[in-house]
């Protein structure tokens, strides 16, 4: 194992000072000279034709600089399926769908102008239940589904409301059920929940005299935004610039295009090339332009042998993707890839459907289909364990994957730490000791998660004349600590101090291509790209230094801010004294290190069988134990403690790893016990922080994160990823603990007191037949 000076240390956030002093200018804070404020008129109906939009009175209001409707730009965008209008021009498909936009001198004027716009709709029948939407006679939400551009792997079914169908077939599933001694089938559901990042979506667009567009926006995906705008507008990519403002949280809610298209149309029409900004209100954040997590209906059928061996697993997952596809097709694939969990199962049959409804749009949200599938699997696994009379952790250990196991897609797995996670978490919680206090229980749940594969990252390292360094990467800091971790990697590689490294903000004019900050991929992918860039920069430095030191470049190392000859530390030259700029007098040259990371051996999933030898370059694993207390009188569940063991490969920054795990555990408590965006005929009833329950400081359990390091051979210093995993195992661990405590299993999230009470009453009634 190499001796590391900076990687592996719990270094506090490099942007901490800006954040504790209020100096950090988030996207929601940014103001530009001459900026106008935009507001959006949204459909009050879930499904209707747009007959006529009269904006004449709004245009005459003093202070209004432009008004746009779908007629100004009747085109659609979309990264997976190009189905979403900039502004609706023929139909509206959900309550909140944008119909018109106003840019004015201030927000109040813009809002007043919205009231002056008259829209004539012809209401259409709407569908809110995804199962109903899959029926052959259901109303078609996208009549031209078959004509939309879409990514090649997306299997949409023209003439239906299905915009993707993921299939996985491993072996003969009926054979698998024949081999089983016991077959169990059950259905689980998850609710529509929202990211609730504290900073709302905020975008500014400005067009120049050549028609080129500049955006300042709080996106996690600058290059995906650029690509989608370019393709949908038919504009060359070098005429669009996406500058990323610091994010106040993302969690997938700021992935791909969100508010940007609304500002682009306004900026294109407004006179004098003024910038136009739209910041979503908190109500809009819950359902309008902003997205939600896919509600899911998951039916699992399992076959097991009496000795606890899993033989067959079959699942049908229905995901309600709402009015537009957004990232739904990808979430569909992920939800399928994750089934049947981190277990060895010889026979698997998976169907995942991504279904349009007239509900709010569902998109990327931490876990990305994983959170739904794992909820169902891990609740189900406990039910199976009970049928067998086996301890839930023993049952899982028996079936868990190991190094070299074959996955559901036929991949030979490596870097598999799930068993160590189970062992650590059961030891830390004294799992074998039964809870003695009445109403208390313990529950365990596992998870695994893939990462986007293939995906590419590229980076530049610029060495300034004085030896300080600028890092050009498009990885987006949204609070997860990527800036700090990537700085650690660069400082370690170049042998310089943290304070000698500065990361430049992501800007597609300046920072090179990156797939996007999601899928828990950035430490791995961009970390590797930066290591390559550092090696490239050092090669260039060593060439010059070798000449000056009269040494062989292969004998040089970079350490403590200087270039040394190995074994002769007095033969050195500080990096800042190497001629790289104005001191160039025939020797030396400016240094730019370039590094790219790709996965050339990524393998596409077979569209019929879902088989692939490498659908994910690494897998993340975790085991959670929840300790709960259930009040039989009120049905209230208190989570006393969450213990979470995570196989993350290698902790580049252990403090940052703890922060991720704890934050996701907190989100998991919300998902498990309280969060739900309630709809009535497509209308959200609780789009605010009072009626949509978010966990507060008073709702948190004790938390013990446990870091498990398995050193993935392809990760930077062995690191994998951690952004998403801690969310998925939390809710099922809590549900399993509730079952252990009071003997009721709630299969529909969130587990609210009324559901617990109802289940307890039903259980009581069953025990005392009349």
């Amino acid at each position, binding site marked *: 194992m190499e001796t590391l000076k900076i990687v592996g240390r719990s270094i506090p956030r490099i942007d901490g*000072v800006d*954040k*504790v002093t*209020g100096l950090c*200018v988030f996207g*929601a804070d940014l103001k530009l000279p001459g900026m106008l404020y935009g507001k959006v008129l949204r459909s009050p109906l879930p499904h209707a034709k747009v007959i006529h939009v009269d904006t004449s009175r709004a245009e005459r209001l003093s202070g209004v600089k432009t008004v746009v409707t779908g007629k100004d730009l009747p085109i659609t965008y979309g990264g997976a399926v190009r189905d979403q209008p900039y502004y609706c021009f023929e139909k509206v498909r959900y309550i909140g769908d944008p119909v018109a936009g106003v840019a004015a001198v201030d927000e109040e004027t813009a809002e007043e102008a919205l009231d002056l716009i008259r829209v004539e709709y012809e209401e259409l029948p709407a569908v809110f239940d995804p199962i109903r939407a899959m029926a052959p006679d259901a109303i078609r939400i996208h009549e031209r589904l078959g004509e939309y551009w879409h990514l090649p792997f997306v299997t949409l079914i023209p003439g239906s409301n299905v915009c993707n169908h993921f299939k996985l077939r491993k072996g003969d599933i009926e054979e698998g059920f024949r081999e089983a001694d016991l077959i169990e089938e059950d259905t689980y559901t998850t609710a529509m929940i929202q990211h609730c990042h*504290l900073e709302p979506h905020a975008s500014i667009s400005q067009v120049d005299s050549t028609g080129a567009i500049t955006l300042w926006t709080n996106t996690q995906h600058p290059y995906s935004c650029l690509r989608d705008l370019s393709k949908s507008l038919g504009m060359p990519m070098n005429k669009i610039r996406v500058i990323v403002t610091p994010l*106040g949280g993302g969690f997938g809610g700021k992935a791909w295009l969100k508010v940007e298209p609304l500002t682009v149309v306004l900026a294109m029409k407004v006179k004098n090339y003024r910038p136009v900004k739209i910041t979503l209100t908190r109500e809009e954040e819950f359902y309008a332009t902003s997205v939600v997590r896919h509600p899911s209906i998951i039916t699992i059928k399992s076959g097991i042998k009496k000795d606890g061996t899993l033989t067959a697993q079959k699942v049908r997952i229905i995901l309600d993707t709402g009015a537009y596809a957004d990232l739904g097709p990808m979430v569909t694939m992920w939800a399928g890839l994750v089934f049947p969990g981190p277990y060895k199962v010889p026979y698997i049959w998976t169907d995942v459907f991504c279904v349009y409804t007239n509900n709010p749009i569902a998109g990327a949200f931490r876990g990305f289909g994983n959170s739904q599938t794992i909820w169902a699997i891990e609740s189900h696994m406990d039910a199976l364990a009970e049928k067998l009379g086996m301890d839930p952790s023993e049952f899982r250990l028996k079936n868990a994957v190991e190094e070299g196991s074959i996955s559901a897609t036929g991949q030979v797995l490596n870097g598999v730490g799930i068993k160590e996670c189970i062992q650590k978490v059961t030891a830390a919680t004294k799992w074998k000791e039964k809870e003695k206090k009445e109403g208390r229980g313990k529950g365990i749940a596992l998870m695994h998660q893939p990462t986007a594969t293939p995906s590419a990252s590229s980076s530049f390292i610029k060495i300034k004349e004085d030896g300080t360094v600028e890092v050009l990467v498009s990885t987006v800091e949204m609070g997860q600590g990527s800036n700090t971790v990537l700085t650690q990697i660069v400082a370690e590689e170049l042998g310089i101090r943290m304070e000698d490294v500065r990361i430049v903000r992501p800007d597609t004019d300046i920072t090179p291509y990156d797939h996007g900050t999601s899928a828990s991929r950035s430490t791995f992918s961009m970390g590797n790209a930066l290591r390559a860039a550092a090696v490239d920069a050092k090669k260039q430095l060593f060439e010059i230094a070798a000449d000056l030191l009269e040494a062989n470049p292969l004998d040089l190392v970079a350490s403590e801010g200087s270039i040394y000859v190995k074994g002769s530390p007095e033969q050195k030259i500080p990096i800042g004294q190497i001629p790289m700029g104005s001191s160039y007098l025939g020797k030396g040259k400016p240094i730019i290190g370039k590094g790219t990371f790709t996965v050339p051996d990524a393998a596409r999933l077979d569209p019929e069988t879902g088989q692939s030898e490498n659908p994910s370059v690494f897998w993340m694993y975790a085991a959670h134990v929840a300790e709960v207390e259930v009040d039989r009188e009120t049905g209230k569940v208190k989570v006393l403690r969450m213990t979470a063991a995570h196989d993350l490969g290698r902790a580049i920054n252990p403090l940052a790893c703890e*922060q991720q795990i704890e934050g996701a555990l907190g989100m998991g408590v919300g998902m498990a016990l309280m969060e739900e965006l309630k709809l009535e005929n497509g209308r959200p009833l609780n789009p605010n*922080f009072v009626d949509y329950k978010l966990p507060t400081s008073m709702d948190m359990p004790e938390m013990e994160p446990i870091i498990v390091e398995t050193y993935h051979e392809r990760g930077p210093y062995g690191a994998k990823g951690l952004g998403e995993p801690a969310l998925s195992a939390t809710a099922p661990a809590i549900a399993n603990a509730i079952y252990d405590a009071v003997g009721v299993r709630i299969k529909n999230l969130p587990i609210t007191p009324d559901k617990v009470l109802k289940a307890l009453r039903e259980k009581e009634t069953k025990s005392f037949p009349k």
Partner: protein
Amino acid sequence: MKRQVRMKVNGEEVEGWIDPRRTLLDFLRDDLNLGGTKKGCDLGNCGACTVLINGKPINSCLVLAVEAEGQEILTIEGLSEEKRLHPIQEAFIEHGAVQCGYCTPGMILSAKALLDENPHPTEWEVRVAISGNLCRCTGYKKIVEAILSVSQGAMNDR
């Protein structure tokens, strides 16, 4: 009809002609260019806009700017003196209580209000004091640890 209003913000006298419908939050952010106080919901539900008015933590989106006439306001910008961080700010960085940072200014001011009144709170008292400040990133654990560390260490009168 705009009204002239005078108040003290971060120790400085300020005055302005303000539309009576304007919130204190918008006045601080847009008129005084004190962007450290954040807007998370504009409805008084998230605490991101917390400022101290005469030492009490208040959601500034629920206060009309004209209501602050004659009051003393402390925003996050007023907490660090001459670039020296307040112990609460330092503790937040050191303990990993900062992730995205959007809830942080409001959270720190709620903590200051608590510690000014109750220098040695229990963990539960800390959790209650910050329960009006929503955070989606941290799970609150390290925030509570940071605040407790300040109460246990020596805290200068600031």
